[in-house]
């Protein structure tokens, strides 16, 4: 008898109890002896030079230990590359307190270290500052003429530039039966995880640090600290078991890490630096972007010409890039394409990957243009997608490893009741509310990177699985435990997944929806290797029951190695350990995609999104009454946590479309609403009937588990689906996000 599989079961999060009892500790919550508190001071100008930074009075305050500025900053690494992290775009990484040069509004310019948080914050107000200001530019719209191509760098590997033009776009577009074009804009957005960035550094002796950091990559932070401060990697331990949301903001080491480590090393003390909410707007954001589309289609609905251009903001020091314009031709197999992506460097901090970076931007423009085409062709929007359905990624001319998007469309439409839609805009009403149905497609890459995992079995038959990977609320700990349990034939209780510690085997930063597809197969491989070790030892046992057997002839179940064809014949793990003198049995394995094979197919997750909105005709108030997202993302390890990922993504989509935006006053180059009262995200009352369908998708190519990823795909289709529903309800095409009521009046 074999154990029932854990993969596919809706297991509740294993860390649930810790999170509902307040026992889960986040980076800024670790106790330390005689802990010092750091408070960061930020520039109030946008560009220029600090001429005076006088800390004399502040330093006299009781409890103030030290104030660090560019004038007394301890020496750190000289070379730019030493500051680069795993998510660094091409360019020159920002270095806190390097000199008196101000590059953006809110730039950290000093760190006050004091015995209490309150005193550090108070002393910060007593620093006397003078600047010389220089002319700056923060407005993307008024600087579009400065758009230029992006520099290439290491980051281009995961973020390839747009494909080269194919066919003859101009001619095909001019000769198309119908044409649709649009201009699309969205402003700056900030990640705003609920937990504010914090680092607690425990000074463990000369050049030896234990660091609790808010990060999406323990090894990323470890590498940064070691390189920047000239420490040995083994003397820097970064731990992050609980991360209070990140959504991309933790993909790069943020300045509180630099500040806390700097102070700790200099003062030889334990130091904590926690940012406040306004400071959460001073280190990276989704870049405001302008997009232009021109799609042409034949009479039968076939799209034959695609032009998509994006111009995004970047900083003066790095070329932040995201994939905005590559998606349309991955979905719709037009022969004539022209795809361009450019950036405008402005006096802001570098943009930073934010949940579904690029994809949520690009698909917004693509899927609204498709909706407009559908109206011009007098074809149902869903039907238009089916007419242009492709089993191939036309842009790379490769077959998809799997693509069950058709079933997403069909199952999603059925669940939603798409067939009840009267296509005529403003045709559906409920009381004084206009009702609109809209749909859109979603797509996101299915990537896999390299990871290492260690599996250790102890004589009690229990197994520890180790990986440096974080769990930012995605359910990683739970699903890795499920994967290990199935491979080892053990119960969940027999497995402990130890994670989020840079001392553990390598895992890349947690982002891009690639964690489960990267660490999952590595867990499986390590568990298989552990089984093989056990099997080899079992073959050499005195009773020699398995001596003639091959590994393929046995299964592992509940502490036994059992012969497949003869279940009566088995060896207990306990016997193996007895013969092994009770010593633990362990293995560490590297797991990565086969480089010769992996690039031969296109790999993506897909979704179909259906949305119903109500729009108050007089007041313009928009409500998403219900939404259905049907997702094809390969094997779903845990339907409960995966559904939460998609629901979260859908709510991010609602937020992006109808709520959130960071507003800049370009006269000052400053964000005007850096707080949670004025930066609107949906509250409970905004969220109504949301449904998720996971469409069966069997993929034997992507990895041994057949898993893709679900972190991003929930977001990408929502903004265009909502905007399309608003068009259906009101007859108004609103291409700029967020759509607030004033745009409908």
């Amino acid at each position: 008898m074999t154990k029932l599989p854990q993969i596919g079961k809706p297991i509740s999060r294993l860390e649930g109890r810790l999170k509902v009892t307040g026992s889960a500790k986040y980076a800024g919550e670790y106790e330390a002896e005689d802990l010092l508190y750091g408070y960061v001071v930020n520039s109030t100008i946008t560009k220029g030079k600090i001429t005076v930074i006088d800390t004399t009075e502040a330093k006299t305050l009781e409890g103030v230990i030290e104030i660090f500025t560019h004038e007394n900053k301890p020496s750190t690494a000289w070379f730019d590359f030493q500051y680069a992290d795993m998510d660094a775009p091409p360019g020159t990484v920002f270095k806190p307190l390097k000199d008196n040069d101000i590059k953006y509004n809110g730039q950290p310019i000093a760190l006050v270290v004091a015995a209490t948080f309150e005193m550090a914050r108070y002393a910060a107000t007593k620093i006397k500052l003078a600047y010389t200001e220089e002319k700056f530019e923060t407005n993307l719209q008024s600087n579009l003429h400065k758009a230029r191509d992006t520099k290439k760098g290491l980051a281009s590997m995961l973020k390839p530039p747009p494909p080269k033009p194919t066919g003859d776009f101009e001619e095909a577009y001019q000769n198309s039966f119908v044409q649709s074009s649009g201009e699309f804009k969205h402003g700056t957005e900030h990640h705003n995880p609920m937990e504010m960035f914090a680092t607690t550094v425990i000074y463990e002796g000369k050049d030896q640090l234990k660091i609790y950091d808010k990060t999406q990559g323990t090894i990323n932070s470890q590498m940064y600290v070691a390189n920047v401060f000239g420490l040995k990697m083994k003397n820097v331990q970064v731990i992050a078991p609980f991360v209070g949301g990140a959504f991309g903001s933790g993909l790069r080491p943020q300045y509180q890490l630099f500040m806390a480590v700097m102070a700790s090393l200099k003062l030889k003390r334990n130091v904590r630096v926690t940012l406040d909410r306004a400071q959460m707007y001073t280190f990276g954001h989704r870049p405001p972007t302008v997009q232009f589309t021109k799609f042409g289609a034949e009479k039968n609905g076939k799209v034959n010409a695609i032009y998509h251009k994006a111009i995004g903001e970047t900083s003066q020091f790095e070329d932040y890039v995201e994939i905005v314009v590559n998606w349309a031709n991955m979905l719709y197999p037009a022969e004539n394409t022209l795809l361009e992506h450019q950036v405008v460097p402005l006096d802001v901090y570098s943009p930073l990957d934010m949940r579904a970076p690029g994809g949520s931007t690009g698909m917004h423009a693509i899927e609204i243009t498709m909706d407009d085409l559908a109206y011009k062709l007098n074809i149902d929007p869903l039907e238009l997608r089916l007419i242009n359905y492709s089993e191939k990624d036309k842009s790379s001319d490769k077959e998809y490893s799997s693509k069950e998007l058709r079933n997403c469309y069909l199952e999603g439409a059925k669940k939603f009741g798409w067939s009840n839609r009267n296509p005529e805009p403003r045709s559906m009403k409920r009381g004084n509310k206009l009702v609109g149905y809209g749909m859109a497609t979603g797509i996101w890459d299915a990537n896999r990177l390299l990871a290492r995992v260690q599996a250790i079995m102890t004589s009690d038959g229990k197994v520890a699985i180790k990986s440096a990977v974080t769990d930012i609320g995605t359910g990683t700990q739970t699903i890795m435990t499920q994967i290990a349990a199935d491979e080892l034939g053990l119960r969940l209780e027999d497995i402990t997944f130890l994670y989020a510690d840079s001392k553990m085997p390598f895992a890349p930063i947690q982002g891009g929806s690639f964690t489960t597809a990267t660490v999952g197969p590595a867990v499986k491989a390590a568990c298989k290797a552990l089984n093989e070790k056990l099997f080899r030892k079992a073959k050499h046992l005195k009773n020699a029951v398995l001596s003639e057997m091959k590994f393929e002839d046995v299964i592992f179940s509940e502490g036994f190695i059992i012969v497949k064809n003869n279940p009566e014949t088995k060896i207990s793990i306990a016997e193996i350990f007895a013969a092994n003198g009770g010593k633990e049995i362990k293995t560490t394995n590297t797991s990565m995609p086969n480089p010769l094979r992996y690039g031969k197919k296109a790999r993506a997750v897909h979704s179909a999104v259906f949305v119903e909105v109500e729009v108050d005709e007089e007041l313009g108030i928009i409500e998403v009454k219900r939404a259905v997202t049907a997702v094809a993302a390969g094997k779903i390890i845990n339907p409960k946590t995966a559904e939460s990922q998609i629901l979260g993504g859908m709510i991010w989509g609602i937020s992006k479309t109808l709520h959130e935006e960071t507003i800049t006053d370009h006269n000052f180059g400053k964000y005007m609403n850096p707080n949670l009262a004025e930066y609107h995200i949906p509250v409970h009352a905004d969220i109504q009937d949301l449904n998720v369908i996971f469409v069966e998708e069997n993929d034997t190519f992507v990895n041994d588990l057949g898993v893709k990823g679900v972190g991003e795909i929930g977001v990408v289709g929502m903004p265009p689906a909502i905007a399309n529903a608003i068009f259906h309800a009101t007859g108004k095409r609103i291409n700029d996000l967020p759509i607030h009521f004033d745009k409908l009046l």
Partner: protein
Amino acid sequence: MEPKETHAITLNVNDTNYQIQILPWVSLLDVLREELHLTGTKKGCDHGQCGACTVLVDGKRILSCLTLAVMKDGSAITTIEGVADGENLHPIQKAFIEHDAFQCGYCTPGQICSAIGMLKEGKAQTREEVQELMSGNLCRCGANRGIINAIMEVKEGGCHE
């Protein structure tokens, strides 16, 4: 305006009395987190905008970041650490786990304390009213559906105090 004079106050937190000497400018939230090391109560904004710091004071839900500790001298405070009955989770806590009503877990203590306070207020009758009266507690992961489902289950099951 440097407030150097400390004040002696007594806070009863989760049935334990704490005598503390505190400067008047310290918020209840910072006393809980930094003095008493009860870090289950979270700081998400420090401005009363997110609800992560919600605790129960004399049975009522309040924002501990907008409350100076000296204002609550003698009060009985329940934080997330005191919601469970020993090893037995509060029904709301159980329902949160079952409904996957959190992802990162950072807003969770505030959501749970707020939900307990909200149910006790007895104003919200329908799902819509519960959503409305829970809207002071933000969740950036988008666990909203699970949170409201969890609260509704407990409300309809009648197992709240």
